[in-house]
C-alpha cells in the first residue's frame, strides 16, 4: 500500500488529500468482503450465495457513502484510516456470515444478524462526531464528568435488574430486548478523561522525587509521594474490576491504557515501572485470594491438561481455538472449509482464531498488518496534531486498539491468560463496533484539523505562493 508520509509537522506544506486513493482502497476492501462471502458459499454449498450481493453490496454502499461523506466533512483527514477500518469491518462481516451459514438450516437464508445495522450506526456516529465535534479540545472541559461516566459505565452491569450475566461474566446490561456492554464505551470516556487530566497535571507529575540508588547507580527515579494519588486510584479501579466484576480483560485494558498515556504525558518511565510493580503485586495477591483468578491462570498454563480441559469452565474453548488454528496451518482451510463453529464464541472473542483457521497464518498476519497499519496511522495523527490534549487523545485511542487486540489474540494464542475481550471492528456485537467507529470519528477529526492548511490571510495572497504538488 502506498503511504502518504510527508513530514507532518504543523508547519509543513499542506498535505495532499489523496481521497481518490482512499476510494480505491475502500473498493478493494469491499471486493475482498464480497469475495470472502462468495468463497465461503462456494465451499459450503457449491454455489455463490445471494449474500455476496445482498450483504456485500449493502456493506459496499455504506463504505462508499462513508467515503463520499469524508470528501465533504473531513477532506484533509488521513486517507488510510477509513479503508483499514472498513477492511477489518468487512472481513468480520464475511466471517460472521460464514459462521451463521453453517448453523442455519438453509445457507441462502443466513444473514449476518445485526452486524450490518451496527456498522451503519457506527458510521453514522463516526460522522456525527466528525461533523459536530469541530474541535476535540472542547472535551477538556469535561475532565471529571468523563471520569464519572467511565466509572458509572463500568459499574452498571453490577447493578441488579438491568445487570446481565452472560457465561459467567457480568459485563452486560439489559433493558428490554436490548443488551449492551457498557465497558466498551467506558474506554472512550476513560481516554478522554486521561487526556484532559494528564494535560493539566503533566507538569506536576513530571517532577522527579528521590532517586533510588544502589551504590552510584540510579535504579529508578521515584515520583514524589504526594503525586502518587492518581496512580493509586487507577490501580484500585483496575484491581476492583478484577475482583468485583471478575473481568480481567477490562482490568488489564484500563490499567494498561492508563500507564501508556501517563508515560506519553510525563515521559517518565518510572511511572510505568511503578504501575507495573503495583499491578503485579495486586494481581499476585488476587491470585492467592480469589479462585476465579487462579482458575484463569491454571487454564492458561495447563490448557492441555486433561483435567483442566474437562473441568466446568475449563480450557476447552482455548484448546479448541488453538486446535482450529493448527488445522489452519500456513494457508488455511479456505473460508467455509474449516470447522470454526466447533469453537465457542467463534464470531466474537475467537474471531481471530476462526480467521487463523480458515485463512491460515498468512491471512491472520495480513489482518494483523492492517490492524497495525491502522494503529500506526493513529499514532501519526497524534504526532501531527497540535496541542497536548489532541496528542494524548489520539495516541490513547490508537493504543486502546492495539492493546485490545493484544489482549484478545494473546489470550486466544496463550501469550497471556485468556480473558475475553472484543476484537476491534471484527467481533460480532454492537457495542464494540460502535465504540471502534466512535474512536475512528475522533481520530479522523483530529487528523483533519491537523492536516488542514491554515487559512491564508487575504493580504498574503499573491505575495507568498503555496506550492502544490
Amino acid at each position: 500500500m502506498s503511504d502518504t508520509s510527508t513530514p507532518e509537522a504543523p508547519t509543513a506544506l499542506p498535505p495532499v488529500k489523496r481521497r481518490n486513493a482512499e476510494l480505491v482502497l475502500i473498493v478493494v476492501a469491499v471486493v475482498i468482503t464480497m469475495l470472502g462471502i462468495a468463497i465461503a458459499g462456494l465451499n459450503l454449498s457449491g454455489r455463490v450465495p445471494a449474500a455476496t450481493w445482498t450483504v456485500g453490496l449493502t456493506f459496499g454502499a455504506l463504505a462508499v457513502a462513508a467515503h463520499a461523506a469524508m470528501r465533504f466533512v473531513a477532506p484533509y483527514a488521513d486517507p488510510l484510516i477509513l479503508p483499514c477500518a472498513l477492511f477489518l469491518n468487512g472481513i468480520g462481516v464475511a466471517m460472521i456470515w460464514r459462521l451463521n451459514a453453517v448453523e442455519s438450516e438453509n445457507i441462502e437464508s443466513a444473514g449476518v444478524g445485526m452486524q450490518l445495522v451496527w456498522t451503519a450506526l457506527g458510521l453514522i456516529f463516526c460522522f456525527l462526531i466528525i461533523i459536530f465535534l469541530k474541535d476535540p479540545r472542547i472535551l477538556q472541559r469535561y475532565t471529571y464528568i468523563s471520569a464519572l461516566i467511565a466509572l458509572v459505565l463500568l459499574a452498571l452491569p453490577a447493578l441488579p435488574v438491568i445487570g446481565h450475566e452472560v457465561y459467567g461474566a457480568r459485563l452486560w446490561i439489559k433493558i428490554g430486548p436490548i443488551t449492551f456492554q457498557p465497558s466498551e464505551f467506558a474506554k472512550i470516556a476513560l481516554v478522554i478523561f486521561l487526556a484532559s487530566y494528564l494535560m493539566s497535571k503533566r507538569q506536576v507529575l513530571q517532577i522527579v522525587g528521590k532517586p533510588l540508588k544502589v551504590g552510584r547507580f540510579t535504579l529508578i527515579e521515584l515520583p514524589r509521594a504526594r503525586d502518587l494519588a492518581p496512580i493509586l486510584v487507577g490501580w484500585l479501579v483496575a484491581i476492583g474490576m478484577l475482583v468485583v466484576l471478575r473481568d480481567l480483560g477490562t482490568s488489564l485494558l484500563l490499567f494498561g491504557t492508563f500507564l501508556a498515556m501517563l508515560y506519553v504525558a510525563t515521559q517518565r518511565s518510572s511511572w510505568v515501572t511503578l504501575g507495573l510493580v503495583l499491578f503485579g503485586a495486586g494481581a499476585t495477591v488476587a491470585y492467592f485470594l480469589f479462585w476465579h483468578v487462579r482458575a484463569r491462570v491454571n487454564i492458561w498454563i495447563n490448557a492441555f491438561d486433561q483435567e483442566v480441559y474437562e473441568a466446568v469452565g475449563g480450557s476447552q474453548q482455548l484448546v479448541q481455538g488453538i486446535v482450529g488454528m493448527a488445522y489452519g496451518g500456513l494457508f488455511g482451510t479456505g473460508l467455509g472449509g474449516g470447522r470454526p463453529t466447533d469453537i465457542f464464541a467463534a464470531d466474537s472473542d475467537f474471531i481471530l482464531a476462526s480467521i487463523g483457521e480458515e485463512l491460515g497464518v498468512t491471512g491472520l498476519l495480513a489482518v494483523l498488518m492492517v490492524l497495525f497499519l491502522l494503529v500506526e496511522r493513529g499514532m501519526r495523527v497524534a504526532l501531527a496534531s497540535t496541542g497536548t490534549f489532541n496528542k494524548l487523545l489520539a495516541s490513547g485511542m490508537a493504543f486502546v486498539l492495539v492493546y485490545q487486540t493484544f489482549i484478545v489474540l494473546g489470550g486466544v494464542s496463550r501469550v497471556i491468560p485468556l480473558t475475553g475481550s472484543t476484537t476491534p471492528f471484527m467481533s460480532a456485537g454492537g457495542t464494540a463496533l460502535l465504540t471502534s467507529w466512535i474512536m475512528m470519528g475522533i481520530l479522523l477529526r483530529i487528523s483533519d484539523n491537523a492536516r488542514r492548511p491554515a487559512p491564508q490571510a487575504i493580504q498574503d495572497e499573491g505575495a507568498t505562493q503555496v506550492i502544490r504538488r
Partner: protein
Amino acid sequence: MNTTIRRLSIFCLLMFLVLMANITWIQGIQAPTIKEDPLNRRQYAEQASAPRGPILVGGENVAYSENIADEGDPARYQRVYEGGDMYTPIVGSFRNYGASGIEAVENDLLNGSDDRLAVRNFRDMITGREPEGAQVQLTLVPEVQEAGYTAFENLGGRNGAAVALDPDTGAILGAISYPSYDPNTVVDINNPQDSTNAYVELENDERKPLLNRALNERYPPGSTFKVVTAAAAIENLDAGPDSTQEAPDQLQFPSGPPLPNAMGSCNGGQPDTLAHSIQISCNTSFANWAMELGGEALSEQATAFGFNPEEPMAVPLSVVDSYAPVESDQSILGRAGIGQSNVEATPLQMAMVAAGIANDGDVMRPYVVESVRDSDLSVITQTSPDTYSEAVSARTADMLTDMMVLVTTPPEGSGLNAAIPGIEVAGKTGTAENGTDRTHNWFIGFAPADDPQVAVAVVVEFGGGSGNELAAPVARALMEAVVL
C-alpha cells in the same frame, strides 16, 4: 511529547511482533503436534463417518462400521455396537467428540493410519481397493462376560465390577463394570446433537456409567487381601498352614480403636492357625501376622502381585495403580494386613492376586487384545503371554491354594456361595469398610483348584452385605461359565 508517542508506537509494534511470532509458531511449527494431542476432539469428528475396522469377541463383531448412505451418495459409515451394555467398558465408543476403550486405544489400527499398515495402504492405493482398518480381536469370552453382567443385573441395582483372567496366560476372559451404557445411543451420526446430549447425561449420571470400575476404580480390598498377607507370612516367616498367631476376640492397637472379628471369635480366643484364619476370615490373627511381618515385607509382597507399580499398567487400556504402601505405624500396619487403612486395589489387581496363586505363584501380565489382523486376516500383532512377576514360590502357592479351598468347604468355610458342585474352588471373601455404613463386598478365587482355568475378582460397591452373600454368587457364575 512526540518522542514518547514514537516510543509508544514502537511498543505497539513489539506487541504485534509477539502476536505474529506466536501465531506463526502455533500454526506453522507446532501444528502437527497440536493435531495429535488427545484433546484434539476434531480428529474424532473427522473420522466419525469414516470406515473403521471391527472389534471382535469370540469371532463375532461387537463393533463394526456400516455404510448408511443411500446408493450413489458418498459413503457414510455408522459405527454399530452389538451386545448392548456389557462390552462397553472394554470396547468403548467412538463418538463425534471423543472415544473411549479399545476404540480410543487402538484407534490408529482401527482407522488404518498406523504405520504397521503402511505397506498394505500403499498396496491398496495402487490396486485401487478401498482402504480398510485393521480388526481387533479381544480375549473376552462372550459366555463369561454375559454371565457376569447378568449376575450384576440381578443384584438389585448395586454397582460393581468383576474381572476374570486366564491364570496361565493373563488373558482377560471377562471384565464387567456395572452399570454400563449402550454405545449406540452416543454415536448416531445422523443425530449428532442427540448423541452429544445422551453422552452429557451419562457424564452427569451419579451412578457413573462411564467409569470402568474393573480397571479404573480402587476399593479397599478388605479380607481378600489376607491371602497377600498369608503369602508374605509363608515366604518371609517360614509359616505354614498350621502356624499359629494370637487371635483375641478384640485386638488392641497402640493407638486408635480396637479391631474386632466379624464373626466374634476365631478360635475361642486362643491362637489360630493360618489355614483356619483364612477359612473363617479371622481379623485379629491377620493383623498380628502383618505386625510381625513389618511394613516393608507386606508392601513388598503386595508389589510382587502388582500393587505399587513403577509405571501404570496398560492392557492396553490404562489401569489405575493399586496401593499397598509401606506402613511404619503398627496400628495402621495391622489394619493393612486385613486390606484396610491405606490398601486400595482395582478389581483387576485382586484378580491378578488370585491368578498368581492359581498359576504356581507366577503372575501373568493381563491383556485384553488377543490379536490385530489386517483386513485380509494376516496377523499384524499377536499378544504372547508374558510373566509380570514371580510373586511367590510354587510351594507357597500350593499352600495358599489348599487354604483357599477351605473357604468354599463346609461347614466352616466363609465363602460357600462360590462352591461349584463337583469342582474344587479356591476363594477368599472380603467385606471392606469404606467410611460409610455400607461395606464393599468382595470375592476372589479360581477354579478348578487343582488345574485352574479361570481366576476371578468381584467387588460389589456399597453392597452392604457380606462377600459371601453378594460377591461370591457373581464369582461362581463367572467361573462356571469357564469350567462347566
